[in-house]
């Protein structure tokens, strides 16, 4: 009982005396002491008032003092405590009895009102928690909300343990399942042997253990099972700062209700996590299948051509004329190079995915790496006019020349694939703020609207190029490499037809300037 209540209680005593004094004063005023037997009603009123408002002790005191005062002042012989008429004894007893009974009734009624208010508060708190849990989407937030509510409403520290299979989405309740601590409030005590045994007991039996329970009653915390709709999920431990907390029946029922709410919300969250894992695994499976079928087809096709041509030469080469023989040999050569490019693409993508690529960054003028890429595709570009526009004032960029060169080669090859033979290509560079923008443009059919982002995904080929060969990794490799350089890459359709691929790189100021060596 806190100080204020205690102080109030102390006040009851002087008040109880004061009431008697007041009643006496009024009685004397109204009634003539020699005919004042009716004054007993006033005293009775005083006793009733005292019993309604004061504690047991003070109200009995009021009764007693009222009896004495009444006897003293109104009962003959006056101003004397002697009782001559035995009927007055009945009056006195009745007054005392009234005091006791009314006091008890009043107290009970007060207690019930208090209990009802408490229950109402508890229900409201429980509703609050269930609303918060309903909003919380992910497991961590959910557990934190539940722990907060339980901690606040029971003035306790909270510990939540979940069974390992439940974390993986399997709701079996095997006795041997391990329990994992998934959340604790900052002040929650460590689990020692006894507490751990209690949690295991709760898990096994599905019944409470700890303070106020049959099992492990010596512990200061109460452990309850967390139940979902499909079975047990785990155990929640509540350590109230006030030990006697869970000896109260209402408190226990209340904390059980909280645990039930927690169980439902936790189950929902675990199921959602499980569903997400399944979805991701299905996606991965899908991607892996796409890879396998794509690899199989795109590697076997050139291999088929090579072995076919070679086998023909071996079998009937002697009877073929020279140009035909030459043609077959050309096939072997070309298809071998094609196979090499495809394998390279696959390996590059795998390395990039695995993060196994370390960039060797150096400051370079763009011109060099563009020239290098164009040189690599020299023969392929033979029938095309390639316009390059790289102003001399373009700042240098910090790139890995080999990897960035690969990006340009892929973009140019892409442009070649998706534009008609003989149509022109453009490679341009521009300076925009502190970025350098490189663009590769063609005059092909362009990109189907809406596909601009999708084409950078793995194994995507634009619908506009039906029958176009290739593994479909070129653009996703570009995106990975440009991303590793801290830049962006995107595609747009051009005015006048065709597609343009743009990428950005941070522009730099070359460090230290360049030295001119004397002599």
């Amino acid at each position, binding site marked *: 009982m806190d100080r204020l209540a205690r102080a109030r209680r102390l006040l009851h005593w002087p008040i109880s005396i004061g009431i008697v004094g007041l009643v006496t004063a009024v009685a004397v005023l109204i009634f003539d002491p020699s005919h004042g037997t009716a004054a007993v009603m006033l005293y009775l009123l005083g006793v009733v008032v005292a019993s309604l408002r004061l504690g047991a002790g003070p109200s009995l005191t009021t009764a007693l003092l009222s009896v004495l005062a009444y006897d003293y002042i109104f009962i003959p012989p006056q101003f004397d405590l002697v009782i001559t008429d035995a009927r007055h004894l009945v009056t006195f007893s009745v007054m005392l009895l009234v005091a006791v009974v009314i006091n008890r009734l009043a107290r009970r009624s007060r207690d019930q009102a208090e209990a009802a208010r408490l229950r109402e508060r508890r229900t409201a708190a429980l509703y609050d928690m269930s609303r918060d849990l309903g909003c919380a989407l992910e497991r961590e937030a959910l557990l934190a909300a539940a722990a907060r509510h339980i901690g606040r409403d029971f003035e306790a520290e909270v510990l939540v343990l979940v069974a390992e299979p439940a974390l993986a989405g399997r709701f079996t309740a095997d006795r041997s399942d391990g329990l994992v601590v998934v959340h604790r409030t900052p002040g929650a005590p460590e689990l020692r042997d006894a507490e751990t045994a209690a949690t295991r007991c709760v898990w096994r039996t599905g019944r409470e253990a700890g303070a106020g329970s049959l099992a492990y009653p010596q512990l200061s915390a109460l452990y309850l099972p967390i139940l979902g709709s499909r079975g047990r999920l785990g155990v929640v431990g509540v350590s109230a700062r006030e030990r006697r907390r869970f000896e109260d029946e209402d408190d226990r029922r209340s904390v059980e209700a909280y645990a039930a709410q927690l169980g439902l919300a936790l189950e929902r969250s675990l199921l959602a996590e499980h569903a997400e894992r399944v979805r991701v695994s299905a996606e991965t499976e899908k991607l892996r299948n796409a890879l396998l079928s794509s690899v199989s087809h795109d590697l076997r096709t050139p291999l088929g051509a090579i072995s076919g041509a070679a086998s023909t030469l071996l079998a009937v080469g002697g009877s073929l004329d020279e140009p035909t023989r030459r043609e077959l040999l050309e096939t072997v050569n070309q298809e071998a190079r094609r196979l090499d490019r495809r394998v390279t693409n696959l390996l590059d993508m795998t390395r990039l995915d695995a993060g196994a690529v370390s960039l060797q960054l*150096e400051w370079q003028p763009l011109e060099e790496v*563009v*020239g290098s890429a*164009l040189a690599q*595709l020299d023969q392929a570009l033979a029938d095309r006019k390639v316009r390059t526009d790289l102003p001399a004032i373009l700042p240098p960029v910090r790139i890995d*020349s080999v990897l960035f060169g690969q990006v340009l080669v892929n973009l140019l*090859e892409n442009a070649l694939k998706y534009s008609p033979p003989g149509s022109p290509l453009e490679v341009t560079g521009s300076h925009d703020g502190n970025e350098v923008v490189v663009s590769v443009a063609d005059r092909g059919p362009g990109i189907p609207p809406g596909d601009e982002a999708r084409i950078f995904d793995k194994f995507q080929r634009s619908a506009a190029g039906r029958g176009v060969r290739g593994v479909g990794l070129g653009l996703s490799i570009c995106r990975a490499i440009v991303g590793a350089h801290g830049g962006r890459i995107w595609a747009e359709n051009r005015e006048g037809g065709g597609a343009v691929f743009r990428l950005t790189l941070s522009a730099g100021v070359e460090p230290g300037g360049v030295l001119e060596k004397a002599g």
Partner: protein
Amino acid sequence: MSEGLRDTVLMIEDEPQMRRFLRAAITASGYGCLEANTGLVGLNEAATRNPAVILLDLGLPDIDGLEVTRRLRTWTPAPIIVLSARGQEVDKVEALDAGADDYLTKPFGVPELLARIRVALRHRRQQAGTATEPMVTFGNVRVDLAERKVTRGGEVLHLTPTEYKLLAVLVRHAGKVVTHRQLLNEAWGPAYAAETQYVRVYVGHLRHRLEPDAARPRYLITEPGVGYRLQLDEERVPASGGGHAP
């Protein structure tokens, strides 16, 4: 090549299929052919048979190709051409800096191989004989190392001292690859070994002054991840066959 004294090419390569086609290509071109399938055997052959050119695969089973290069360089000036897979630029650069003369990336075509061998032999002959060729021509550019004069289309070009030094290095090694480190070393000095961006910028300058189209150089070629090569017209390799669509 003089008759009776064919230049011999030693190939140190462990893959039998590679040796088969190299052997065919080399002998058909009129060179003698020596083979070794491990590094140790290769070192032995090089010591005893004195080949004119050595083809060295970097992925040997017994000794690291780099180590073989170092050991060879302790006693033979014979040109070494290293063969290596794509993506192993670091290995190639190390081998080149350790004394190898040129490189080929697998898979490579036979015309490329023969061109490299020719360049290697030319340089060897120049070294063995008189001093380096004093005058080199490419396109309409003529570089006279003796007079320190560079002309383009007959007109004298005035290059800065560093530009000239850089060009001179490439000219002295005409046809062969020169690593960034070698260029920095010879044009700037050993202290600048790591400042690759200097080389790039100056090569850019040279391209603008000497090439018909600086953005698509024909002579001052970038070897990505490795260095640069001054490509002479007579040693230009017709692009090896192969369609462009991947």
